[in-house]
């Protein structure tokens, strides 16, 4: 595989500065609505703030990849005397929880760095985080070329894992027939 130059986009998360306002969730869900900003629903956001004030635990987490199965263990971290569930840091849309899934379809959500059109100068969650818990950096890196699944493929893959590939093909065929009538 050949090497290519790629802009790496980094969001630095300073959990110590997070105040739990969830503005990042709000603007992410609104930005990804169609038409843009026509809907607010944090349950559709690609960032989630895990917070538990009574333990002073505040962790903003981005939606990463989709996972077909939940992981085996449930480790716990103790940082600065505070106990965190491992899941608090996990970016996966996995079967163990409802985070990072579209509420209606349960299709997985993934942060796209707001590369939607029109492309934003800075990710919107960063722009709306006035606490500076989220800051944005870009840097160039040489990486190996890989093929990335697009949104549709990720969604289909999730459905296939859940229902079986053949069932999906059958359903699509049925739906097509109905459309034609």
């Amino acid at each position, binding site marked *: 595989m050949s090497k290519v130059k790629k802009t790496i986009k980094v969001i630095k998360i300073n959990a110590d500065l997070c105040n*739990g306002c969830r503005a990042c969730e709000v603007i992410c869900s609104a930005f990804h609505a169609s*038409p843009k900003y026509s809907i*607010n629903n944090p349950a559709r956001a690609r960032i989630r703030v895990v917070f538990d004030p*009574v333990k*002073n635990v505040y962790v903003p987490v981005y939606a990463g990849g989709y996972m077909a199965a939940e992981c085996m263990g449930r480790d716990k971290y103790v940082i600065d005397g505070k106990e965190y569930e491992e899941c608090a840091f996990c970016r996966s849309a996995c079967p163990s929880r409802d985070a990072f899934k579209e509420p209606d379809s349960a299709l997985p959500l993934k942060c796209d760095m707001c590369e939607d059109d029109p492309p934003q100068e800075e990710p919107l969650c960063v722009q709306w985080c006035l606490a500076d818990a989220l800051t944005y950096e870009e840097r160039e890196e040489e990486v190996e070329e890989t093929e990335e699944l697009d949104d549709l493929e990720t969604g289909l893959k999730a459905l296939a894992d859940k229902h079986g590939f053949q069932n999906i093909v059958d359903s699509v065929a049925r739906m097509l027939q109905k459309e034609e009538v």
Partner: protein
Amino acid sequence: MRYAETGFNLEIDLSSGNIEKVETDPKLTELHLGGLGTNAKIMWDRVPPEVEPFSPENLLIFSSGLLGGTPAPAANRTIVTTISPQTRLMAYSMMGGFFAPELKFAGYDKIIIRGKSPSLVYLWIKDDKVEIRDASHLQGKGSLETSEIIKQELNEPKAQVASIGLAGENRVFFSSIEHGRSSASRGGLGAVMGDKNLKAIAVRGTKDINIARPEEFIKLCNEVLQYIQWRADNPIKHVPPILAGLGSPQEMAIHDEQWHTTAFSWGNARYRRKDFWTEEVEKEWTKVQDGAVERLISCYNCPMKCGAVISYPTQELSKYMMKCYSKLTYVMGAMADDLEFGFRIAGLAQGYGIDGFSGPQVMAFAIELYENGILTDEDLPGFPSDNEGRFFYLLEKIVRREGIGDVLANGVYWAARQIGKGAEEYDHNTIKKHEQIPIKLGMLNPIFFLLLSTGEKINITQIEGQLPQAPFPNPEDRKEFVKDWIQVPSDTIKEFFLKWEPRGEYAFPFYPDFQTACELVEWQETMHYIDDAVGLCAGLSSFPIKPPYHINNLPQIISAATGLDIDRDELWHKIIKRNRNLIRANNVRRGLRRKDDKPPQDHWKKRFPEYEAKLLDEYYKFKGWNAEGIPTKETLEGLGIGYVGEDLEKRGIYNNEQSEENN
């Protein structure tokens, strides 16, 4: 499609267990917006004056505002409305936090609760699924602990919970409804919730809120955020630090408490300690506060972080959350010089669920009665000798309604009358039977006179705002101040400010003229009524000086979100005026009259009875009310709520204006 609102209310009858999802009439949104406005309409229609606070017929309404759950920053208020057991009037308190947006995401604008459950229950709302669940295991549990247990047993860490503590269960007249870092604490709403045997409401929602004109709306939201950022670097000059910024007073972040500790009164709203704030105190208090505050926290979709995670234990939990000025109310009420005491007792009191304003004043009142021989060792067996100990003692008695606590739990006004023996003399800081902020000043302030007298939230901080509290001595500073004062409705207000002097012809009490005083009061009040209808936090709107939300951008923000075309005139002179009069009418029907419209008796040393009477006359006229403070039939007719006037007429209220004492 409904925009900004969901268009549905949840009707819960706790007596029968009946649960209904009811579509609302979009016409009511046009007439009243939502939040407090539509709450007042429901109270008018469904809770006639014969209904007692502790009657199954009394409603307890949890409402979001019209903008709640939209991306508008700080649109997060939950407006709770019922008939108060203490004032026996319509009580409405608001809480911040996360409850109202979550309710909207679950698909409801309001939860309307009636009836009385036969046993202690809690409500669990998850989108379309609504359950009334047993809460017997939560009896006596602290408010925050209750919320933790519920989230755990439902396995719903993202659920938002509003709950009562022991005080609410025992119907203490100043008990609160607590919700994490926030509470609806004025007017004894928690007592009504307790009376209904409702320990808590938990809600989780995953549905959409729609915006009518998204591009326009988000642009306005971004402007609000940009202004907030700009103001962070450009505080207001020539005012105390606590008033220079935005948000609720930044009590958790600011250490300089000179203003509160020297300008407000200590004890039973008695003593000013003008030289309390020394370098030594500042050093000690800074240390205590830095040790207590673990993190500054915000409400839903707001950058202001007015609250904090506090590392003091409360009942079974190791931390609690605090906001605003409750760190000082207990300290000053107890005449304790120790801030640590404040953090210790506030957490405990919050767990029990009492109002951080009224609670300390009731306790300070009891201590005064004891010191003056009106309450004795018989009433207070084992009463400690130090004030801090006494406060803890009284807290436990009150929330359990044990011994004298049963009387004190009714608040200063009622307790004074139950105790007798001259105790009434010590009830000097209530309005309409409700404890007030402990401020005692010199010269009558005509603007505050009207605000305090006629405000039906019966809480000055929930009705005043935006105007510096004192004139700037230097005229140049005034000129500079008005230059970017874009938040005012008219030049009259700028002119008032430019001329306003600490002494002489252009000073209080005879400055400004009646008309200007009325305009200033109505402007301040109107801004709060807008917030309460749309669910915005006063901390970014009606309260601070030069806020990001104001009369000149709110009409457009509301219009863009809802698709209704509301201009400034419609918003102010029709909708808000309608809401204001509807609330007034609800209370007039319950006996509110001119005699109740007065400030705490000793709020100012220098009073001018004739002038004050004239002020009130002029203000009533300005409002379209008669000499008894009753909205006239014509006023109500002109606002499209003629049916309200007809009802008042049918009840003979216009003929027989003086009401019986409303108790």
